[in-house]
């Protein structure tokens, strides 16, 4: 069952075209990966799927409803988004940041309820970061801040979670911790996620479907075994030296220089 989909979506920043006729579907309860070289339009596609950018052609559909016809506040209860990198200037505590995930459920003139605080603490716990709750985010490492961002999106209790390179600033241990947390949430609570990533090693073991982009178009899609192939990846990344190999039941991808 499709939960979120883009249907023939095109977008350009001014005269600079970024996306051409992109159609992508995310099945409920699935993990979908979006791969492709830098600047191919992955992040723009994610913003369109979140609804913070509107497509110039085509539509984004949430359970068949056009996303732009859904009021902003309701939309925030359906789609949660973790931007690539965010560094707050002000020393908000991690809990304050995560609590903002509850905004779409509250009133403009009320502070978050006790129930909201429980949801926020559980979201922090889910990513193994509850010890960070009282700390100012300005004093956290890049990896810790990323965990707080993911927790905020989890606290949003949305139908689908969109993550833009969540592992980019994480070290090996935090990367594994985040991956394990997302997989556990999928099993326990049926989490649906779309993940933009360059971390090709993580892919085949955890993802149900992959989409590969190049220059604003989807050039390959299917289960990981269909996409993580040397010929397909060579096309997507415009790099004839892409190699794949299997170690311990996982597919590894590298470029041979």
């Amino acid at each position: 069952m499709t939960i979120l989909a883009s249907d023939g979506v095109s977008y350009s920043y001014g005269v600079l075209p970024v996306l051409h006729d992109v159609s992508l579907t995310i099945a409920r309860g699935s993990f979908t990966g979006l791969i492709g070289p830098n600047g191919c339009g992955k992040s723009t596609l994610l913003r369109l799927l979140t609804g913070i950018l509107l497509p110039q052609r085509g539509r984004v559909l949430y359970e068949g409803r056009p996303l732009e016809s859904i009021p902003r506040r309701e939309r925030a209860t359906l789609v949660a988004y973790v931007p690539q990198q965010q560094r707050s200037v002000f020393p908000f505590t991690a809990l304050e940041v995560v609590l903002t995930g509850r905004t779409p459920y509250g009133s403009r003139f009320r502070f978050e309820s006790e129930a909201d605080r429980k949801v926020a603490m559980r979201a922090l716990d889910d990513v193994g970061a509850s010890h960070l709750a009282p700390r100012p985010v300005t004093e956290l490492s890049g990896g810790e801040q990323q965990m707080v961002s993911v927790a905020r999106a989890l606290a949003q209790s949305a139908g689908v979670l969109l993550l833009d390179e969540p592992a980019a600033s994480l070290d090996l241990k935090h990367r594994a911790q985040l991956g394990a947390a997302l997989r556990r949430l999928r099993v326990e609570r049926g989490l649906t996620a779309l993940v933009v990533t360059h971390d090709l090693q993580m892919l085949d073991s955890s993802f149900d479907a992959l989409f590969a982009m190049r220059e604003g178009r989807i050039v390959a899609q299917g289960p990981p075994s269909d996409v993580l192939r040397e010929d397909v990846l060579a096309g997507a990344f415009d790099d004839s030296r892409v190699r794949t190999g299997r170690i311990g039941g996982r597919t590894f991808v590298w470029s041979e220089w």
Partner: protein
Amino acid sequence: MRPARRLVWALLALSGILAIVVAFALSTGYQSITWQELQTNETARTIFFRLRIPRVLLAILVGASLSTVGSALQALFRNPLAEPFTLGVSGGGALGASVAIALGFGASLGGVPLVFLTAFAGALLFVAIVYRLASSGPVFLPGALLLSGVVLNLIAGAGVLLIQFLTDYTRALQILRWMVGTLDVVGIDLVWRMALFLLPGLLLLLYSTRDLHLIAMDEESAAALGVDVRRVERTVYAASSLVVGVAVAVAGPIGFVGLIVPHAVRLTLGEDLRIVIPCSMLLGAGFLVAADTFARTILGASELPVGAVTALAGGPLFLVLLARKTRYAAI
């Protein structure tokens, strides 16, 4: 303490502080006034009701305005050094206001004092320029933000000087006195008229506190959480320009109040903008009443311009904050 309770206690405490400061300000002055004299002495009554009460009310309005706008602009631009004075918004208001003063202070357009309108227009124009120069996609370049504010202030200063030079002697003197920032006011009419314009602006800013709380963390996340970021930006610019324009039109560009007060609030009450903005409003009122009482009494018979007092207190604070780069990485 939970944020809701923190806000209530803070508002109570700050109201108490404001009441004490106001009582002190009303009872202090070159001429000391006792309760007895207030009943019998006509001169004392005139000083108290025509000079002292309007002056304290003006200080409350201006202090609350500058501090509220300061805390809102800091959130919106994600820059702890932003405030009406450092961003050139006060300068724009001052330039607009001096045009009106040169044309004749009393002129009005459909009942609205011309000086309010031109100051509002000047402030709006300058905040638009700062926004254009400093914005780069979803981020504001902190250096460009403050630098354009400084240069706009210089331009406004030169503009005011030019107007002073071209206009007649009395008006030039009037502009000179007002440019330093002073809360000298006679009668209460102007204060009421001012309040009529400030109130809608301040209410709009209070209405936007939750949106500003989210935007202060991250603009994209705020948008994903359902905030119409562009609309909040437009609202805050318009409301800030109105509030600062009107405050500057009457009291002159009193600097750094919008920097000192929100920082004091954040140091004691944390970063939640839903707490910081209303508390800045109250503390700002008390702060300017106190600063003005100090300015008009410290020398005995003659008085200091309150703008010079706040600038002497706030300028060094700005530099201290600038030096603390570790806490505010974006400066």
